[in-house]
């Protein structure tokens, strides 16, 4: 009898997601690199928005998409930060302290994804909205600036933040799979950017499915994009596709993390 009662209390009173997420939040916020990488990401996106805005002449162009042009470049930094959230643990040896404190490894990765994903989303939304307003303000007087009330504009701005979050989580998953910073960053850059260059030339029909293309040509667009040969995914399909990539990478990372020696 006594044993049964103890066992029931035992299963309830133990570490769970909230505690692990709190640990990950303290870890993330206590590294200076977190803040300056995010600051550079936002500043870069806004800078590009202003530059594109200043040089706009065609009022019929997708001005929202133009203002969000810097988002897809900033994505790289969000992805790299995601990689570092995981590989930094291995480089420093911190992973042993983390996993001794929380032996449930998939739970550790889930908490990291939730905490980092939320912060990347917040930075992405900041980048999206500031870029949009700064880009609009920088437009020449002859070109009427887009407003958030126009169809699809708010969606494009909001989804650009989601792009940061999801590419960041993909980076985190790659970090968990590969564990070494340079290799994981190489795969991230190669998979997200370099592959895009090759696909653009050699396998053009696959282009709409590439992460960077999804963010640049699906999530952040107001007018559906198509270059005659290929039709890019609609914003929501693009978002679903990016979520799928993030889930697959994170799932593979969790599977490996649980099985490998730390």
């Amino acid at each position, binding site marked *: 009898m006594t044993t049964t009662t103890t066992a029931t209390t*035992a299963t309830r*009173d*133990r*570490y769970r997601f909230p*505690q*692990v997420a*709190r*640990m*990950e939040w*303290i*870890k993330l916020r*206590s*590294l*200076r*690199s977190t803040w300056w990488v995010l600051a550079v990401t936002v500043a870069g996106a806004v800078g590009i928005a202003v530059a594109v805005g200043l040089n706009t002449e065609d009022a019929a162009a997708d001005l929202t998409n133009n203002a969000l042009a810097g988002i897809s470049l900033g994505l790289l930094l969000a992805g790299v930060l995601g990689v570092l959230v995981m590989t*930094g*643990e291995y480089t*420093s*040896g*911190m*992973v*042993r*302290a*983390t*996993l*001794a*404190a*929380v*032996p*449930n490894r998939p739970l550790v990765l889930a908490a990291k994804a939730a905490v980092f994903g939320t912060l990347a989303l917040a930075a992405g939304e900041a980048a999206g909205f500031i870029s949009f307003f700064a880009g609009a303000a920088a437009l020449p007087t002859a070109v009427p600036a887009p407003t958030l009330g126009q169809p699809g504009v708010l969606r494009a701005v909001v989804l650009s933040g989601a792009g940061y979050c999801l590419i960041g989580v993909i980076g985190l998953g790659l970090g968990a799979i590969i564990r070494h910073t340079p290799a994981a960053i190489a795969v991230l850059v190669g998979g997200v950017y370099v592959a895009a260059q090759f696909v653009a030339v050699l396998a053009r029909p696959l282009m709409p499915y590439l992460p960077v293309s999804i963010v640049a040509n699906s999530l952040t667009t107001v007018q559906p994009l198509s270059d005659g040969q290929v039709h890019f995914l609609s914003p929501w399909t693009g978002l679903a596709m990016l979520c799928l990539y993030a889930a697959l990478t994170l799932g593979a990372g969790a599977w490996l993390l649980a*099985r490998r*020696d*730390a």
Partner: protein
Amino acid sequence: MIEVRELSKRYGATVAVDGLSFDVRPGMVTGFLGPNGSGKSTTMRLLLGLDTPDAGQVRINGCRYRDLRWPLREVGALLEAGAFHPGRSARAHLAALAASNRIPRSRVEEVLELVGLGEAGGRRAGSFSLGMGQRLGIAAALLGDPGVLLLDEPVNGLDPEGIRWIRGLLRSLAAQGRTVLVSSHLIGEIARTADRVVVIGRGRLLAEESVAELSARSASLEEAFFELTSASAEYRAASDPEGMRS
């Protein structure tokens, strides 16, 4: 109480731990001795569930490590080579670990004071000396006020004052009824602090007895250790001057 049963672990072709069984009892300091490469650190990692054994099992207070409800409140570990991020302050490092096991935030300041890092708590751990890093590791081990302590080479990098401090600390932790396992390759250090010893070589158990019993086997504990491990030492310099000359 720690129970190790028939534990085996190989990395590729290297057998690190080979059918190892021993007990670590509460209320005393147990020294974990063995030559370099004998499998001490591997065993420590297996005890903490960081590596998965190929065979055998470990029970801590009757539980598998991964089934512990609040691991840091039951087991505190100091692992070789600082397990902290160099960019994070000592205080943030401990606060993060404390949060994971719902340990009160005030405990962070307590352990920082206890290990003598009260002043340095806000500094980036990457700027710490080896000895300070070691103190931070000990602070992390004590964070959850655990009944079981696993310390891998705790005196590494400590100055004489620090070594004396940790000796007293280990003795008092054991006197409070805790289970204390301390690995070291410094036999003199173990002779001064431990009550019992577990000696391993090439991943196998060579002896599990009291320090007095082991010392009685030969002229000193050190001699007894060398006799015990001579057959299994993986890395040992040539002791024969004739051999050196040729």
